[in-house]
């Protein structure tokens, strides 16, 4: 308790890390960071670093846990052993089990579990670096990961905390404020303003509590905006997003029938080919093979011309272009090259062999 700050808020109304009372720590997030998971999100919030992964809906084992009318949500909140200065004993603890439970319940009202009876949706939230407010950070990350996994939800869930330090309510506590402050109220909210998680430790008056809820809601709204932005910007890099007119309307069955019908024909042909050796089809194929070969050899020649011994076409093209550019520049700037070289010579005591030649 020796490192408790004397004052949390200075005379200018700024907190220890320079934030105003209603200002959050900077947050940044990225979705789709894990390729094996169905959905994932990496979130940094101040000094918090959280990674969330979603698997499912998938088959639930053991079967006795299955719910016949809806999917089960399993939420695992875990702090990495190295996430704080003092090593945390790995494995579930009283604290992490409790947080897992309340976080799961924060999602249950929004996830459309009844669409997947008997299945399970696994959410893993791993805290890599902790600096107070990790459960809210984990919920924000998990919400994004669920969206990324394509799981139907009524809305996104955002969470943040309000606390009391120096008798004043502040948004989004950091470590010292959490450790030595008077109260901590984490809260999660759906996008239409329903509160799905609310916890409190410490003490506040009724008025303060009401004010804290309002501050939390405002914080959650800000986070929701960031979440929306992150999700929307993922595909804006692509060209115009397009949905073909045929979505949903495709008469797949008719299509498959035609696929199957022609398949059988192809079957016959290929069997003939196998039986009788070369048929017309095969010759055609060979022709195209030869064409491909020719193309290949063309490329090879190009490679020889430019004296580049790399296999990748792309890089070759790149270098070709660069080379030609360089050539132009060489013509223009022989003088400056010489200057450059002489400069290098001055700086480096060893004169490179190339340069020697030129000097001679």
């Amino acid at each position, binding site marked *: 308790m020796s490192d408790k700050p004397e004052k949390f808020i200075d005379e200018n109304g700024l907190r220890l890390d320079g934030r105003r009372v209603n200002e959050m720590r900077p947050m940044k997030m990225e979705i789709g960071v894990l390729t094996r998971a169905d959905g994932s999100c990496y979130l940094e919030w101040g000094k918090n670093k959280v990674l969330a992964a979603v698997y499912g809906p998938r088959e639930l084992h053991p079967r006795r846990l299955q719910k016949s009318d809806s999917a089960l949500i399993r939420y695992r909140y875990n702090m990495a052993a190295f996430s704080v200065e003092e090593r945390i004993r790995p494995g579930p603890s009283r604290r992490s089990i409790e947080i897992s439970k309340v976080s799961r319940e924060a999602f249950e009202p929004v996830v459309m579990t009844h669409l997947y009876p008997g299945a399970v949706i696994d959410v893993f939230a791993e805290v890599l670096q902790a600096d107070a407010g990790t459960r809210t950070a984990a919920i924000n990350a998990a919400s994004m990961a669920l969206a990324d996994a394509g799981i139907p939800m009524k809305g*996104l869930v955002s969470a943040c905390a309000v606390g009391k330090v120096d008798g004043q309510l502040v948004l989004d506590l950091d470590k010292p404020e959490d450790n030595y402050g008077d109260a901590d109220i984490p809260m999660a909210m759906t996008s239409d303003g329903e509160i799905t998680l609310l916890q409190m430790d410490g003490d506040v008056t009724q008025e303060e509590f009401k004010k804290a809820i309002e501050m939390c809601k405002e914080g959650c709204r800000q986070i929701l905006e960031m979440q929306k932005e992150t999700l929307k910007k993922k595909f804006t890099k692509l060209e115009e997003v397009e949905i073909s007119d045929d979505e949903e309307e495709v008469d*797949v069955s008719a299509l498959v029938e035609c696929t199957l019908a022609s398949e059988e024909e192809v079957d016959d042909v290929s069997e003939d080919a196998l039986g009788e050796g070369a048929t017309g089809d095969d010759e055609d194929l060979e022709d195209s093979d030869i064409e491909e070969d020719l193309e290949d050899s063309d490329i090879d020649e190009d490679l020889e011309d430019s004296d580049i011994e790399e296999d990748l076409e792309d890089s070759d093209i790149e270098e070709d272009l660069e080379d030609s550019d360089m050539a132009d520049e060489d013509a223009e700037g022989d003088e400056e090259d010489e200057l450059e070289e002489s400069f290098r010579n001055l700086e480096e005591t060893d004169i490179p062999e190339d340069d020697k030649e030129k000097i001679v």
Partner: protein
Amino acid sequence: MEREIVIPGQLLSENKTDSGPGTYVKDGNVYSLLYGVKNAKNKISVIPFSGKYIPSPGDYVIGTVIEVTPSNWIFDISSPYDGLLHVSEYPRRVDQDKMTEIMDFGGSALLRIKDVSSSMKVELTMRERGLRALNVGRIIEITPAKVPRVIGHGGSMVSLLKKETNCEIFVGQNGRIWIRGKDGEMDLLTEAIELIVKHSHKSGLTDRISLFLKGGDDVVSEKDEPFLKDDLAKDAEDECEIREETYRKVDALLEDDG
């Protein structure tokens, strides 16, 4: 047509009759359930970017045997729910002890979903023309959400792929695609399908793929060109900087000498 990336909980319409797949109605307003692209044709629907395959009756799927019981083959259909194929749903009469001879653990088959119960018990059938066990070819897995793009408008994409690669293709609605042909052609087709999945949100997809299949690497170079240009521009800039810096240093050195 209006196209827009939407997120869960986003208001799509104030008219509840607009609600289509991937949306829900609350207080007379339509909201999105999914993270995906809004499709505002007739009714508003949301096509997700990702998600698991959920079996529905009548769908064609490709399954892999994970268990053989005395009267059923149990198939993994890359969904949260396994599919059951009863021996009576096999086109021919099969004795119990011959079941593994027809399809054994690990084998794949083209199947149709006969029925899905409310508790998601999935019944499969093979009693239909063209459905059979698969012994040759390859199976590619893609996100089920992209299957409509691989099929294309009225099957245009599949026809194109078949025509250009001489491969047999069967697109299962569970995101598994069976292909069969010569090795090189299957490689090409696999690449083409990867390309479809990668560029599935862009316009002119069929043309792009057609170009890819006909002209070899045209699509790739077309795509990489801007990057190349950017890189070159950057390189040129870098060189300018170096040159200026060099001038300055040389000047300084000359001054020192003087």
